[in-house]
């Protein structure tokens, strides 16, 4: 009951934030945004046609009514049609979101998992050589630009100057239509091509994220190691492995999982602009990139607003989940 109350209160507190992010998107992209009238109309449009399209886009409405119209788009998830291809924005995104998800997921899981393992290893040898080595590597990883990594990895893994193991660019095509292909063969086809296109982007993303992750996770674990209960446990002669795994890691999981959960909407919806553009993967990132370069406002509007709203919802969700798993958290805190 108390948890429910807490959840409702959190949701109420999110309302100003949801209002704020939608309002900010509205101000930047609709109110001050580009005038789309002439990119929709044919070249020799009559005055009536101009009036008509302006009324349809809502340019003749007062500020608050335009904001209302925008909010209706957000709530119904209907952002109109792309100005460059004419396709519905919702159907474009419906195709792109799963692709981004598939591309981002392996890197996301591995970068966090490896980050935690390296951080545990470093924290366990705090101040000694292994710790210093891991932290120096993390600092180097943090200092390399994403763009440098993708260029270098493509060169190493995808071209004849390097190993030439993977295709340079592209994404899985539907399998050729063999009438007697078994389900297993089709599955193998998808599996094979999925990894051949996703392997290098995954390696690059892990390489870039690992430094930041390790540093953050190590700081959290070291802070936990300095607590009194760790000393008490050591005084009782509890073995180091048990202290690290059962007590320290378990307590450190709260800040660690917050970080993981709140980055999830960015990974899934915003996609990864750099990787998808660079490797030609038709996910949300590439769709957004094309929309930015073509000035395709409805798509950018949809992506920005959806990501921001999902981020706020993820924040609330983490709060509520913690309330359930960690009895120490109370509203007053």
């Amino acid at each position, binding site marked *: 009951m108390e948890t429910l109350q807490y959840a409702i209160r959190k949701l109420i507190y999110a309302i100003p*934030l949801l209002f704020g992010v939608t309002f900010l998107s509205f*101000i930047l992209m609709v109110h001050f945004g580009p005038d789309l009238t002439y990119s929709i109309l044919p070249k020799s449009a009559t005055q009536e046609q101009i009036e008509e399209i302006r009324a349809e886009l809502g340019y003749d409405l007062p500020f608050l009514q335009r904001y209302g119209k925008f909010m209706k788009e957000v709530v119904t998830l209907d952002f109109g049609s792309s100005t460059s291809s004419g396709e519905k924005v919702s159907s474009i995104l419906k195709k792109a979101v799963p692709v981004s998800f598939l591309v981002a997921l392996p890197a996301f899981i591995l970068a966090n998992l490896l980050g935690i393992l390296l951080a545990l290893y470093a924290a366990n040898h705090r101040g000694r050589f292994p710790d210093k080595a891991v932290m120096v590597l993390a600092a180097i990883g943090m*200092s390399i630009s*994403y*763009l440098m990594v993708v260029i*270098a990895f493509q060169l190493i893994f995808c071209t004849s100057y390097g190993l030439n193991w993977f295709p340079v660019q592209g994404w899985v095509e539907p399998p050729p239509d063999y009438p007697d292909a078994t389900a297993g063969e089709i599955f193998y086809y998808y599996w094979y091509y999925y990894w051949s296109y996703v392997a290098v982007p995954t390696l690059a993303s892990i390489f870039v994220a690992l430094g930041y992750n390790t540093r953050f996770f190590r700081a959290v674990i070291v802070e936990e190691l300095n607590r009194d209960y760790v000393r008490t446990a050591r005084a009782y002669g509890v073995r180091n492995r048990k202290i690290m795994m059962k007590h320290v890691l378990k307590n450190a999981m709260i800040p660690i999982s917050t970080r993981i959960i709140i980055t999830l909407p960015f990974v899934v919806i*915003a996609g990864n602009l750099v990787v998808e553009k660079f490797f030609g993967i038709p996910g949300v990132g590439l769709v957004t990139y094309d929309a930015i370069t073509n000035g395709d*406002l409805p798509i950018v509007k949809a992506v*920005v607003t959806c990501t921001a709203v999902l*981020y706020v919802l993820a924040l609330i969700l983490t709060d509520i989940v913690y309330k359930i798993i960690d009895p120490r958290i109370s509203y007053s805190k």
Partner: protein
Amino acid sequence: MSEEEVIVGRESLWTKSGRKLLRDRAGVAAMVVVGIYGIIALLVSFGVIAQDWDKLGEEGFEGMSAAHWFGTNINGQDIFARALQGIKTAFQVGVVVAISATAIGGILGAIAGYFHRTIVDEVIMWIYGCIDAIPFYLFVAAVAFALKGAEFTVPVLDLHISLAPYAMHIAMIATFWSSTCRIVRGEVIKIRGLEYIQAAKAIGVGPLTIIRRHVMPNTSHLLLVQSTIAFVGAIKSEVILTFLGLGVKEGVSWGIMLSESINDVLRGHMGNFLGASGFLFVLVIAFNMFADALQDALDPKKVSG
């Protein structure tokens, strides 16, 4: 700790931290590297070196030579001179963004922290909460949309400055201030409970004067560290944003060089890639190390250790 370091007389946090920073060998080395970059940036800005960066040569993709240290790019332009010009661009972006973002974050953070648990605090937290919810690259894109065709008009001089080329700077400042604000706010919430602030209140000093004279100077060590972090963030973001077509459009920057190099490397010409990424990597790692050393040196809890 040796005996000579027993502190004699009064010593401020700054001199103490300065001594600590100078003892940190990695920190000093990083500081020297950043200093060299800074001097090059100044020399380039004042037209002493690397002025022929946009001079077209006769032959593209030359190898390394005495005339062209890193070879030439597709247009026969000298890559080394372009990389040096890139230092100037990087410092321009970094310094403008770091100073503005830290100043805004510092002031708003101090106000929010001082007026903790009032509507002022809630509003400031609400603003940065909203900005943090929008992914950075998309935010820059949104700002670029908003500033397309926007002009800043200086009223008296009748000057019209187009804002579109500065969309990147504006967006970076608009997002980078939030982390500074959060940190300063937390520190000020601690400071405002201290006796000297209560004493100032008791003798009738106004809240804005207290914030300006007594609260903000005590957050300057945080601002220093935050500005180094913002500097590195700005330089790294410039590269990505330029690649995405949202960043530097005029002149030359490491982002432009790396974007050009994408096609070069597939044809086996590494000059652009190695030149730009080498300079970028060394500057960023030196600045990161400097920021770490600074943070350790300024942390009062660690000064004694």
